[in-house]
């Protein structure tokens, strides 16, 4: 990659559940609020609490009776997950307007890769706007960490709360990151911290300067990984599909008008299949199950899928099956939305392909190349060849977390 560095945001909602409750009931603002499993029972446990409560010593996972000891006027609420899910959906839809590369990590935090999307704008100003927008539209505070990779962005978002915006540059880590206690490091749990402290690693800086071998012996592969992170190295991409780790890849679109003519419907399937094929290629996987979604004018929605005999990956193959499914299951009523999803994905390097008598020539032509590759692999190891990935994939993504994809299709529909 020619670029100097990536621009990664980590967006972390501040005491999310409590903030959502306060957005619903503004009278709670400024008061110590805690969300707990069973407020009626004193044995309940604090799930999260407002900053006002935290200031009084209320902590997450603290039993309620203990929380009341710290803060007798604590307002304790039952969790209301539908509200949180709803709010989360809105947040991620705001984030995904800025870039398709949004990776939700949980209901209240996510990464964004803005390398290609901030344009001329200063990333810090951009972050401010994003933060303000979420605050204005949803009345929810968040902290944003800006860094060249996910790890540093995550560490950065943690540094200033609430409503913080922190930039963590790699060259600054000696001053900002290294002095922190090792237990503060993302990826270091209590057990790991204890182990590290036993070999005199107390700060992130200690870890960064320890030799890798010792760490590897102590913590295995994770030791090496933590060592890299402590040195500000983390190459993991922001992966919009990471949510459901290779289960399916799909795209859907709301049609500009309710359609009944096959020509345009087929054209839509071609477009959707093209996007799915691009994403399959990007993730280096193939599919053996194609699903389509049809939403009719009356919002009645059906999904139908077909298990295939062979793995497929090209847009022609995908759209061929999608159209076949459509022919079989369409009730001829006007269609409002169409979707194509590739399911049952398998990484390409784990599969084999049964050649076909009628078109094996396509593969056979490359036999000499494969042979040469095999010989080089035998000599130098499997790592000699890696599949080149388009560094700037021109891909439009849809998020697999259903609340996201639902939101987006609605959104597209009302835009057009």
């Amino acid at each position, binding site marked *: 990659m020619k670029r100097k560095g990536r621009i990664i945001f980590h967006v972390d909602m501040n005491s999310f559940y409590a903030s959502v409750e306060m957005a619903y009931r503004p009278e709670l603002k400024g008061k110590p609020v805690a969300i707990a499993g069973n407020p009626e029972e004193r044995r309940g446990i604090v799930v999260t609490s407002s900053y006002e409560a935290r200031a009084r010593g209320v902590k997450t996972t603290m039993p309620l009776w203990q929380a009341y000891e710290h803060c007798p006027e604590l307002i304790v609420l039952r969790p209301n997950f539908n509200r949180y899910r709803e709010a989360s959906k809105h947040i991620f839809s705001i984030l995904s307007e800025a870039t398709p590369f949004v990776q939700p990590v949980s209901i209240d935090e996510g990464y964004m890769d803005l390398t290609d999307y901030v344009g001329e704008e200063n990333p810090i100003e951009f972050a401010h706007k994003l933060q303000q927008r979420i605050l204005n539209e949803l009345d929810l505070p968040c902290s944003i960490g800006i860094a060249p990779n996910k790890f540093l962005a995550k560490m950065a978002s943690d540094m200033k709360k609430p409503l913080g915006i922190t930039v963590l540059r790699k060259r600054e880590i000696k001053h900002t990151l290294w002095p922190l206690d090792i237990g503060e490091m993302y990826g270091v749990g209590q057990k790991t911290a204890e182990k590290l402290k036993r070999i005199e690693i107390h700060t992130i800086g200690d870890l960064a300067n320890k030799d890798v071998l010792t760490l590897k012996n102590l913590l295995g592969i994770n030791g090496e990984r933590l060592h890299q992170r402590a040195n500000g190295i983390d190459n993991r991409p922001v992966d919009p599909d990471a949510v459901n780790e290779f289960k399916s890849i799909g795209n859907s679109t709301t049609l500009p008008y309710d359609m009944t003519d096959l020509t345009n419907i087929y054209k839509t399937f071609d477009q959707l299949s093209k996007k799915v094929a691009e994403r399959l290629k990007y993730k280096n996987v193939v599919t053996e199950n194609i699903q389509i979604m049809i939403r009719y004018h009356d919002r009645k929605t059906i999904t139908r899928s077909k298990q295939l005999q062979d793995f497929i990956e090209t847009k022609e193959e995908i759209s061929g099956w999608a159209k076949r499914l459509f022919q079989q299951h369409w009730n001829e009523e006007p269609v409002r939305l169409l979707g194509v999803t590739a399911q049952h994905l398998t990484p390409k390097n784990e599969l084999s392909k049964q050649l076909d008598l*009628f078109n094996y020539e396509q593969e056979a032509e490359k036999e000499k190349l494969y042979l040469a590759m095999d010989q080089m692999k035998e000599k130098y190891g499997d790592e000699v060849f890696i599949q080149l990935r388009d560094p700037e994939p021109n891909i439009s993504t849809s998020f697999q977390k259903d609340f996201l994809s639902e939101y987006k299709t609605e959104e597209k529909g009302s835009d057009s």
Partner: protein
Amino acid sequence: MKILIEREPLMNSIQNVMKAISSKTTIPILSGIKLEANDQGVKLTGSNSDITIESIIPVEEDGIVNIHEMVPGQIVVQAKFLPEIIRKLPDHQVEINVDSDLNLQIKSGHAEFKLNGQDAEEYPQLPVLQTDNSFDLQIDLLKMLIRQTNFAVSVSETRPILTGVHLKLENDLLELVATDSHRLASRKITMNDSEQLTFNNVVIPGKSLSELNKILDETQETIQVSVTDNQILFRTKNLYFLSRLLDGNYPETSRLIPNQSKTVVKVDSKELIESIDRASLLAKDNRNNIVKLVTKGQNTLQITSHSPEVGQVEETLETDSIEGEDLKISFNAKYMIDALKAIDSDQVSINFTGAMRPFVIRPEEDDEQILQLITPVRTY
């Protein structure tokens, strides 16, 4: 209608026509068996839209009397219960009576069943096959032809024409070809008396052939094969087996068969089957049931397979000879075993033209009558 009949031939006939009867028929009367009694004997008919089978029980055959009493008539009986009823009757003789209200009475020993019949007039008229395109085959030979090809038909409806066996007769040479697009089985025989008969693009559904194979006994009697545009009829003295043909053009398969080779392996068929069978024990877990074959020095083959979660297996096999280039090739173990079993020869010769190209298996004493083609698996 009335018949007094031996139970065993009746049971056989019922079992034969049952092969054509489907419980999921869209024409209700076809879920029944038609019984017809006339001077020649008793005729049973079963049919679905694809296959129609008629089985005739002659009054007397080879000096054995099958039917002791008869009043001509006809009736359609529900096929669902008839086989079990007849099978479990106590006596070796069965008496069947039909009254004018279509009530059917089955008596044997002290047992008596009363069943509701249906009017045989409502049973579809079967097409009378008009054709001059007929030839005779010995039954055991026909069964062998089916066994050697029919296993290779496609089970997927992606290309429906490939779910059938292609039949071609030209210059006294009858050829059967089946392929599922991954492997191909071909068998030829020379006909002596086909009298300039020529046809092509006759594609018999694989399912029809496997049912036919089940019904026919391994005998040296002849069977008459008649072909029309959309149907094929197999007829023996007491059996009439009519099948629909598949619509569409069968692909030209002769061009698929490589006419040169780079590596030729001659090997004992049984040893190869056993070795591949062992290797495939672990391969069954991976998707394409893949085994890998590698040529080694001193005429040996190495056969390996591995399954990431299970483990791996490796063995070497002495061959009679290996000529030509070194080779590493992966393929579906099942295809190989099917092919070797179909060839049914002690020694086989395998001709490879590279790891990405189909290879040909023939009996070593090549009489060009049987050939099995397998496309390899590409591993990444």
